Structures are given as C-alpha cells and as structure tokens.
C-alpha cells in the first residue's frame, strides 16, 4: 500500500489479536527461561514476492541502505546449505538418503500426478492416490517432513508443491536447494519490517480480535461498512468508509496454541471440531455465513486430530546431545555457519520425529555457549518408541528422552536433561491449510463483488501458488492491494522454472534415483555435440561405451528385435555426424 499504492503510513492501522507483532512468525525467550520458536523458515531463491518486498526493508544489523534481502544474500552466498544426516534410523544410524528411493511404478505415480489437471483433484487425499509402498520411500519421508504434509491431507496441494518446487527436486535429498535466514523468523523478518512500517507512521493496535464485518450489499457489490472487534475484551465497532480498505486474515495456523515445558505437557483449549467464538477463526466463520463467496472454513478447522502437530524448542548448554549434534552437522554448531542444514528425520520414529539446528546464534542476544534447536513431529496419536505416550501427552523431559533414544544416547539422558530446557507448542491448526479441499472452499483475495475487502494469508485461493510459505502470504496481500487500489501492476505468477526443460531433465534424473532416465541416453546421442549439450545431466559411463548403452536403452524401450531399432539408431548417428561436421 505504501510503496506501490502511495498511501500514507499514518492512514494504516494493523489490528492484532496478540500483544506482539508477527503472528505465526514468532521467536522469543531468553537463555534462563528457554527460547521458543513455534516454527522456522526454509526458503528458496525464487520467493519472488517476498524478496520484492524485503529488498526495500532496511536490515537492522547492516548500515543504512542495505536491505533484509542484502543481509540474506550476504549470509547465504557465503555459506552453502546441505545436510549430511537428513534421514536417520535404528537409534542413531544415518539412513542412506542419497536417492529418492523410488521404483519405476512409484516414479510414474508422481509423474501422473504432475500431469493431472488441478480441477480433477478436489477432496482427494494423498493416501487415496499413492500406493502404500510409495508412502514408505525416501522421497515421502523427505517430502512429508520437509513440508509437514500428513498422509491424509490434500493431494491437490501436494501437486501444487511439486510444480512450485520442481526446480528443487534434485536438491531435495541433501537440502542443498534451501536457503535459511540469519536468525529466527521474528528477528530476521518481523523486527525489520515492523521498524520499517512504524517509521512510516503505521500504527499497530494490540489486543484487538476482529470477529465480524458489516457488509452492505448493493446488487453484486459488497462494501464493508464497519469492523467488529474485541479490544481489550470490550466490544468495539470501527466504522469503515466506502473508500476505506479492509484487509483480513482468514484463519490462523497457530491459533489456540497450547504451551508446555520440561515438566508440563500442553493442554489444548480448543474443541476438536469447533474452535469456539473467541478464536481467530471467528471472522472467517462469520463471513462464510453471509455468502458462499467466502468459502467453507469448517473444512480447515473442523478436525483438529488431523491438523495438529507439536513443536519443541530446546535451549542447549553443552551436553552429550550437543556432542551428538556436532557429529551430525556440516560445520561446528558454534561457528555461525550452517549446522544440520535443515531437519534430520527419524524414519522409524512412531511420531515421525525431526529436529534441526539452524545457524547459531538463532537469537541476536543468545549467549555463545547456548544452542537453540527445534524439534517437531507429524503423528500425534501414536505412542513413542521409547516413551509409551503420544507426543501431546508428554512433558519436555519425556520428549527429550524420545529424541535421545532415536539418537542412540538415551543412556546419557540425565546429563542432557540437566543442560537443556524445552518449551513446547502444541498447535491444533498448524496444518489446517493442507486439509483436503475442493474448488470454492477458500475465498479469493478479493471475493467477487467486494469493493473494499481483501483477504490474505494461508486460506485464500490463488491461481497456482502453494500455501504455508511467506512468499504466498505476501502474494495474497499484493493481489488484494493492487486490485482494490486499482493499480495497473501485475503480481507475477509463480516462478516459471517448472517449464524450463533443464528443470524437467534434472528432475527426471533425480526421480530416477540419479540414474539416467528412460530415453536420456538417446537424448545424449542427439545433443552431446550440440549447443544444447549442457542441458543434460552427465552420463555415468565413459564416452566409448555410450553408443552401446544408447542401443540397449532403445532396445529396452521398443522391445528386442524390433526392426525399427537399427533404423532409429542409424538416424540418430547421421544427425550427430551432420551436426558435428564442419561446412566445407
């Protein structure tokens, strides 16, 4: 609104339920009481909306003129991210994660999903589509733990993720496709952005929960005339003029978070099927009662058992856990460089437990001898392998025990507990945005006919983008702002890398467990001596044997003895010769 819409910051007020900015992008605590981050950010280069915004936001720790994007590049350009222990099992052993581990039929399951039309996937779940064997592959453990997909969630959303991150498939195993912020999400993004906004006069009003809007309907036009909110618990009506604008979040992933610590398990306050009136789902629920253009919020909040998981933040002094962490890290955890390079997932964990240590310090004020580690799990209804309870019933001490068991250091648990603080966050709606959905379940950023209402965040419809990224959050807000301000400016569709033949080729190689995919050797025979030779992944066999390998590949494709075989090979060889022969 300020940069592209020329609005004055002083005319903009943020109404925030909480007492601190940032919403789900949180990060707080201290070494004495323990730090807490409910989640973390894994990002990539083509978060185009996010970087478009943060290129104009001053970095707090760099001289004037340097942006958050500049800081991000300064950190990541000089510190590659990768993992050497992405998957583990058998109580402390690194599981081979060098390939995606997909059989040919399982590869086809993925390719068929890519080919399917979006419109044909309404309300279908991942486990309804994929074979049971697929859901045990390296690929699925890498995918589900990295993006937090549950087997019972939306196949359509998984497909959109495949397209959005097709350029990252060859960096999925070791997480080399990822980049990470300098600090936690609050200090890296929220603090600079809030500073930027306050300097421009934007007001932030806390303890204000918006729960309904008055909307005047005039033919097809819908215009917000008032905001209803609880301000400090008191009912308040905020008038909205016809030229004023209202931008609202529909739903919240971290709504109703229950907290725990070393000695207390979190206790949920939200109903399993109805979050109740005093919740951040109320506004969307009330909007949906007014018109079907606002979607069906109950499809997302209506089954907490299917949308919930728990995270744990560990504040660690040196202990046997830190010693084990060092062995699994690509750099010394105290070096300021990449540590685990993303999450480490235990594939034989009943909870599908993962943990990560990002660059340290993870908080600007963190003492040098302290590490902050983040833990989470996907399955909330299964007993642990060591602690015979579901994760939500566990104290921090018990979750530490389960983690130590999977690391093979449960015999050193007392020393770990003595030097570690755990803060727990059980989030009933943390994957609500992935719940199975159909067309019309989510409203558009500017629902039909709305003249001054925009909707943003994880529960709105976009053309092709995914959800649960900061990029898509910015995208939905940009679409709403540009539309309502009638700005003649395009919000670019998702990065076009999925259409790049190089992305498709290297993705096909990765899906085929880093082996040449069917037809790849023939492509090499055709292109190896041409301008386009560099678009193909190098072949594993030496040059001298490649013709024979290509012939065998073609025989395999067409069937042995096919009379076309010799003709096709001869045709390819003539093309190669004609390309490589100099004129004259």
């Amino acid at each position, binding site marked *: 609104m300020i940069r592209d819409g020329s609005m004055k910051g002083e005319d903009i007020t943020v109404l925030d339920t909480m007492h601190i900015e940032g919403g789900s992008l949180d990060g707080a605590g201290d070494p004495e009481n323990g730090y807490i981050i409910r989640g973390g950010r894994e990002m990539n280069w*083509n978060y185009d909306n996010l970087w478009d915004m943060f290129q104009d936001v001053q970095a707090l720790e760099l001289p004037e003129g*340097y942006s958050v994007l500049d800081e991000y590049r300064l950190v990541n350009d*000089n510190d590659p991210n990768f993992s050497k222990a992405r998957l583990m099992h058998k109580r402390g052993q690194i599981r081979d994660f060098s390939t995606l581990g997909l059989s040919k039929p399982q590869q086809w399951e993925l390719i068929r999903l890519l080919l399917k039309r979006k419109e044909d996937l309404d309300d279908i779940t991942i486990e309804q589509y994929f074979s049971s064997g697929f859901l045990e592959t390296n690929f699925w453990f890498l995918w589900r733990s990295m993006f937090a997909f549950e087997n019972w969630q939306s196949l359509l959303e998984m497909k959109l993720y495949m397209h959005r991150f097709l350029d990252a498939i060859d960096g999925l195993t070791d997480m080399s496709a990822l980049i990470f912020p300098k600090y936690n999400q609050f200090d890296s993004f929220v603090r600079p952005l809030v500073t930027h906004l306050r300097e421009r006069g934007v007001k932030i009003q806390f303890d204000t929960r918006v729960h309904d809007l008055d909307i005047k309907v005039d033919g097809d036009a819908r215009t917000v005339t008032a905001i209803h909110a609880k301000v400090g618990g008191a009912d308040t009506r905020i008038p909205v003029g016809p030229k004023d604008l209202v931008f609202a979040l529909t739903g919240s992933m971290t709504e109703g978070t229950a907290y725990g610590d070393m000695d207390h398990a979190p206790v949920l306050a939200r109903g399993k099927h109805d979050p109740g009136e005093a919740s951040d789902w109320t506004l969307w629920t009330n909007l949906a009662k007014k018109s079907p253009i606002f979607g069906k919020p109950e499809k997302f909040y209506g089954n907490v058992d299917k949308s919930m998981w728990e995270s744990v933040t560990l504040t660690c002094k040196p202990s046997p856990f830190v010693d084990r962490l060092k062995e699994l890290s690509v750099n010394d955890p105290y070096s300021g460089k990449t540590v685990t390079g993303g999450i480490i997932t235990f594939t034989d964990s009943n909870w599908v437990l993962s943990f990560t240590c990002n660059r340290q310090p993870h908080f600007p004020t963190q003492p040098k001898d302290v590490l902050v580690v983040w833990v989470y799990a996907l399955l909330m209804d299964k007993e642990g392998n060591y602690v015979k309870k579901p994760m939500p019933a566990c104290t921090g001490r018990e979750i530490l025990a389960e983690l130590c068991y999977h690391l093979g250091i449960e015999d050193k648990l007392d020393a770990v507990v003595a030097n570690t603080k755990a803060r727990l966050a059980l989030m009933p709606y943390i994957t609500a945005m992935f719940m199975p959905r159909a067309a019309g379940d989510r409203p558009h950023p500017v629902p039909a006919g709305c003249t001054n209402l925009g909707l943003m965040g994880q529960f709105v419809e976009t053309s092709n983008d995914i959800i649960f990224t900061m990029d898509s959050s910015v995208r939905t807000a940009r679409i709403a702002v540009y539309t309502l301000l009638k700005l003649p400016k395009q919000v670019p569709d998702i990065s076009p890398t999925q259409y790049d033949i190089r992305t498709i080729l290297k993705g096909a190689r990765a899906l085929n467990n880093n082996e040449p995919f069917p037809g790849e050797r023939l492509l090499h025979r055709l292109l190896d001596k041409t301008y386009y030779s560099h678009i193909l992944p190098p072949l594993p066999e030496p040059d001298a044997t490649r013709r024979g390998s290509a012939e065998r590949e073609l025989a395999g494709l067409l069937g042995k003895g096919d009379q076309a075989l010799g003709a096709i090979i001869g045709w390819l060889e003539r093309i190669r010769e004609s390309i490589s022969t100099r004129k004259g």
Partner: protein
Amino acid sequence: MTDVASSSTSPNSFEVETDASRRYWHNSSHNTLPPPDMMGAYMRNRPVPKGPVEARKAWISAAASRDWPRLST
C-alpha cells in the same frame, strides 16, 4: 552492527559474468548462488563491497560528438 567489509567472504573467483551455456547446472552442496540465468527479485540485492571505496576515483571516457546539434525550443 555487523562489520560489513569483514563479513563479505565471497571468493575472489566470484563469476560476475555468468554463462548458462558453459556447464550443466544443478543443485548441489557446493552451490550458494542461483542458476546463472535466473532472473528475479533475489538478484536485485545490493552487494556489500569487499573493501573500502572512499579513496578510489573513477574516470569515464565518453566519445560524444562535440558538434551534436541542439534542438531548438
């Protein structure tokens, strides 16, 4: 406040003029930079200089035509 100059550890062999046709590009543990022909907001960063520039001068030699006719207004 970060010491900007000492924070920049980009290798001296940093390739300013990228060449997407030179080699097969893929994600790997050695990559820190985007693909050589990627265009997007991520490439619109303001890089941090590796050394001070305050005492450095620059001359730009231009080959303008002295007698270029002025447009009358």
